[in-house]
């Protein structure tokens, strides 16, 4: 176990370095000269050249990459071209809403999708199963922003149950915080929950044909005990895998969701950065999400040993 964790940790730097290389390489091929952008329209060629040298843009690719990685290891993601503010600081200001949105969405999706998937597997072939299967295909087919407008139109514009715009920090009260988060979290979670429900159903179907389930039925155990005590535990490895892998969908979708519901998070930061071609900011956000994703997948692999004690590394 310790050896496995050590080996996995050892694998982390190469993957992170490759991600960093991809992200940095993108900046390198970007048309447009950051030095000219900073210098402004009135700058003389000499001034632009001076800024270029001061930013180290005259250095060859590998030196710039090495320097950038060195900065990265010191927790410096560079400076925003447009806002002239350290990227780390900008991300720090915006991370709260996005983190709330992602965790809330994850919690709601898992809480809904797993029981739904279990129910579909138990009622295999019956009406409930068919309805659930059809709904998951439909849910999987709707882009995040389409779901967002559907929910906002139904529960906000028509029914006036929930606010559809903006974000209220937790510090300003729990009820406004949650009420502003419900619609965006549901929106973001719909397609994720659909994949999760399908995986749960498929994995449960596999397990429910096993002999020990028949034994459990024969000894007179009720459906609740069979499903949740015997079957779900054994079906959990693929489900946990999809929970973890799907987080990438949630991260990508959060950018779009924040745009629909006007949430001032990392997504908004990214969109503004695209508009201004503020590449260091985009790099920072992409790198942050990717590093979190890699870390989450590592933790998931370790979580398998808790979920299923038969797995040993």
């Amino acid at each position, binding site marked *: 176990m310790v050896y496995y964790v050590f080996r996995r940790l050892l694998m982390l730097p*190469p*993957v992170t370095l*490759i*991600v960093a*290389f*991809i*992200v940095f390489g*993108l*900046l390198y*091929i*970007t*048309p447009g000269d950051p030095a000219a952008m900073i210098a402004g329209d009135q700058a003389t060629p000499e001034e632009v050249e001076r800024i270029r040298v001061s930013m180290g843009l005259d250095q060859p690719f590998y030196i710039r990459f090495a320097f950038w990685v060195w900065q990265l290891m010191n927790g410096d993601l560079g400076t925003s071209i447009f806002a002239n503010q350290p990227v780390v600081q900008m991300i720090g200001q915006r991370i709260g809403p996005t983190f709330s949105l992602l965790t809330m969405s994850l919690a709601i999706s898992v809480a809904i999708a797993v029981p739904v998937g279990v129910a579909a597997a138990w009622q295999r072939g019956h009406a409930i199963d068919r309805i659930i*299967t059809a709904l998951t*295909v*439909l849910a*999987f*087919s*709707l*882009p*995040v*922003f*389409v779901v967002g*407008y*559907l929910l906002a*139109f139904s529960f906000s*514009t028509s029914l006036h149950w929930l606010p559809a715009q903006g974000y209220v920090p937790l510090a300003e009260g729990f009820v406004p915080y949650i009420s502003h988060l419900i619609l965006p979290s549901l929106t973001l979670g719909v397609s994720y929950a659909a994949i999760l429900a399908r995986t749960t159903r*498929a994995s449960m*179907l*596999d397990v429910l044909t096993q002999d020990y389930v028949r034994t459990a039925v024969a000894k007179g155990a009720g459906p609740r005990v069979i499903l949740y005590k015997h079957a779900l535990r054994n079906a959990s490895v693929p489900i946990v895998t999809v929970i973890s892998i799907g987080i*990438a*969908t949630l*991260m*990508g*979708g959060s*950018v*779009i969701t924040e*745009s629909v519901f006007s949430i001032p998070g990392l997504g908004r930061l*990214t*969109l503004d*950065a*695209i*508009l201004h*071609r503020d*590449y260091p900011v*985009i*790099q920072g*956000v*992409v790198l942050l*999400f*990717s590093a979190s*994703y*890699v870390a989450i997948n590592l933790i998931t692999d370790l979580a398998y040993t808790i979920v299923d004690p038969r797995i040993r590394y």
Partner: protein
Amino acid sequence: MNHQAHSSSMAAPLQAVELPIRRAKSEWRVLRFLKRHPQIVAGSLILLVVTLVAIFAPLLGTVDPRAISVTKRLRPPSAEFWFGTDALGRDLYSRVVYGARISVGVSVSCAFLSCVGGSIVGMVSASGRWADSVVMRVMDGFMSIPSMLLAIALMAATRGSVGTVIAAITVVEIPRVARVIRSVMLALREMPFVEAAVAAGSTTPKIFVRHLLPAVVSPLTVQATFVGSAAIIIEASLSFIGAGTPPTIPSWGNIMADGKALWQVKPHLVFIPAVFLGVTILGVNLLGDGLRDALDPRMAERS
């Protein structure tokens, strides 16, 4: 590059061998197959209609989708403007019909390019130990970046055009296809018939093309539909946030982005393109699910 050229010519001889035996009942077989997989029928029908709409867009009673008319802004749906007009007085019906072209074009191009690219990468990876570890680490790196974010970053790095959107989505999807192809190849490599071919003195390229490629065709078809569906979603999302298809070209994501500011007063500006988008993606997904069930008996047994 070599594999790619051979892959299309491979399917033909394979069918030629199988067809004569089954010819008598082939019609019944097709009907029975379709009856058993209603998803494939439904998905194909939806896609057929959308594709026809995209191809024959100019003949479907449309006007110039970019023609701005200040006097005819925000008209409700009527006999003249079937879906009404948008904030610039452009005919929404024509815009939605022409928008199908982008979704269909991007979807098909990305599915094709990703499958070709993914197969090449997957096969290179499966062909040697050293290549495998290098290629797969790079693919791991790409897959550690959430796909929507990688697409956004790629689009931010290039000038927005339909071509760059296709390229960005293809780059995002290639690692996923490559993984599937690699795992199929690695499993096949251990099969007795491959060993037999090696023992019979077949060369490595010949084994790849004659014995391994045909086995890859069905997982590749399923992957193609997955990529096709993901491509429509990513293109629409990119266009919706203003980082995809240029605003001058009508695409469903663009039309929704245009309607964004007014959607609470004029919900149809957003919901009409949304319905087209949703139904089209549903069509691809139905086809993909159906194909997977039909081509992968293990999955079919489960459902």
